[in-house]
């Protein structure tokens, strides 16, 4: 059974339809990247899956169970965690508190403070520091750690490397690669850097104007195929 299945999802901002009849399935353990230009609907899709944007139509299933009507905190309990665009840390709370609050309100599982610090050792010296005082890369690491603390079956990472220095991005992808190698966390990432996407993801979905226009295995897609789908020059499926 698919871990996540999105069927004919529609999401709107007022009169603007940001996600248009979107369908996809994500298998357990898979790492899927969603690429697309600004305004293609990637963030709205993520927000609809996480429950903070109310879907105007369609169905979202997690491990077969219909979660379309659940509020966001119940979806966390069901096993979805999202690292939102802009990290959205609780800036006046310490790193420790940011992690702990996710632990207290999320699912129980193998991720604990100890295992998260093992996966993201750069957080160890920062535990007592208010999250507002961190650099961009540190903030993203805290945001990922916070999401892991709720023991998600599905981890959504929005704009992973946006606003980070190249060194911070490299460090971050090292952590994510280790997470992927663990094989237990299913990840969907929104990423602008195509080289990163093709190196990291198993499968790529390219969105254009709220629709999936290209989908295929990362190993079988070329940069030019993705680029033409990205700009709406060609559509198709590669398997």
């Amino acid at each position: 059974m698919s871990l996540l299945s999105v069927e004919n999802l529609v999401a709107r901002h007022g009169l603007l339809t940001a996600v248009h009849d979107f369908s996809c399935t994500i298998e357990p353990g898979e790492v899927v990247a969603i690429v697309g230009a600004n305004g293609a609907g990637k963030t709205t899709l993520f927000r609809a899956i996480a429950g903070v944007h109310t879907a105007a139509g369609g169905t979202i299933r997690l491990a077969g169970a219909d979660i379309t009507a659940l509020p966001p905190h119940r979806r966390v309990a069901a096993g979805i965690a999202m690292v939102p665009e802009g990290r959205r840390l609780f800036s006046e709370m310490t790193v420790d508190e940011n992690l702990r609050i996710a632990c207290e309100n999320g699912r129980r599982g193998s991720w604990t403070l100890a295992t998260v610090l093992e996966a993201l050792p750069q957080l160890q010296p920062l535990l007592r520091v208010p999250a507002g005082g961190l650099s961009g890369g540190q903030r993203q690491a805290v945001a990922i750690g916070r999401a892991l603390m709720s023991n998600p079956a599905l981890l959504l990472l929005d704009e992973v490397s946006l606003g980070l220095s190249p060194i911070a991005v490299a460090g971050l992808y090292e952590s994510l690669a280790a997470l992927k190698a663990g094989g237990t966390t299913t990840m969907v990432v929104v990423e602008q850097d195509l080289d990163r996407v093709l190196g990291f993801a198993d499968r790529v979905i390219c969105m254009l104007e709220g629709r999936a226009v290209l989908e295929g295995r990362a190993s079988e897609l070329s940069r030019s195929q993705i680029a033409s789908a990205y700009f709406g020059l060609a559509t198709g499926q590669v398997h």
Partner: protein
Amino acid sequence: MLDAALQGILLGGYYAVLAAGLSLMFGVIRFINLAHGDLAILGAYLVLFCAERFGLSPWLALVLVLPVMGLFGWVLQGALFARTMRGGFLLPLLTTFGLGAVLQNGMFGLFGSDARSLGNAIGSLSWESWQLPFGISLGKLPVITFGIAVFVLVALQLVLSHTRLGRAIRATSADAEAAELVGVDARTVHRAAAAIAVALAGLAGALLAMRALVNPYAGPAQLIFAFEAVVIGGIGSLWGTLVGGIILGVAQSFGSLLSPQWFQLAGHVVFLGVLGARLYFSHAGRRGGLRFLLTGAR
């Protein structure tokens, strides 16, 4: 002078309890509850009712009434406040203004228009005092009130800093959506915050009824004092609320040295002075400040 300052500081304790709930509601839920003063008076009347009808000690009655007030706050937030917040920023103001009118007239209908006090029920505590050097006497009740204020604020601070609920409250107040994304049920957190706020209002009302007379229409004046304490101390800051309450109390206490009318007036003047100063300093650099407002010159 020293006497007036001390009395003012002790009075500030009462204002801090009154204002803490208002500040909590605004800080966590971004909700301005114009019925806060009326809820305080409701708390006072409930304690009065228990004391007079069942002959309970006011302190015991208070222990019984506070959970009832908290439950009332929980229900109000769930059934009324949360719904009005979906209707824009004006609707909560109108709704709580109306709720205040309902509470006032409801209390008038149930308890009558007589001014009442818990003064009799607390016995000698209402007039006993401690004598200090330099001829200063501190009333036991104001000292106890101040002690309760400090205790309440310390307890609230500990809850916010060190408990699961406190962390959830702080996270929700910083970013409600991000809190939902880590699994916090923001609706429940809002209800809990409203329950604490309304219970604090009830506590303040009971303390008021111990020291003074209350009537069903006394709420709006208390709301104004609470607002002034919150604004002077800085919105959303717990200890700022105590500082604001003390500044307000001291101003009123010094004002009453001039003449009885100046008791309230001095408080309002200090409040307006703080607002004006804040306006001046926050805009001075950018827009030419007060001089710009007064002269219209660039």
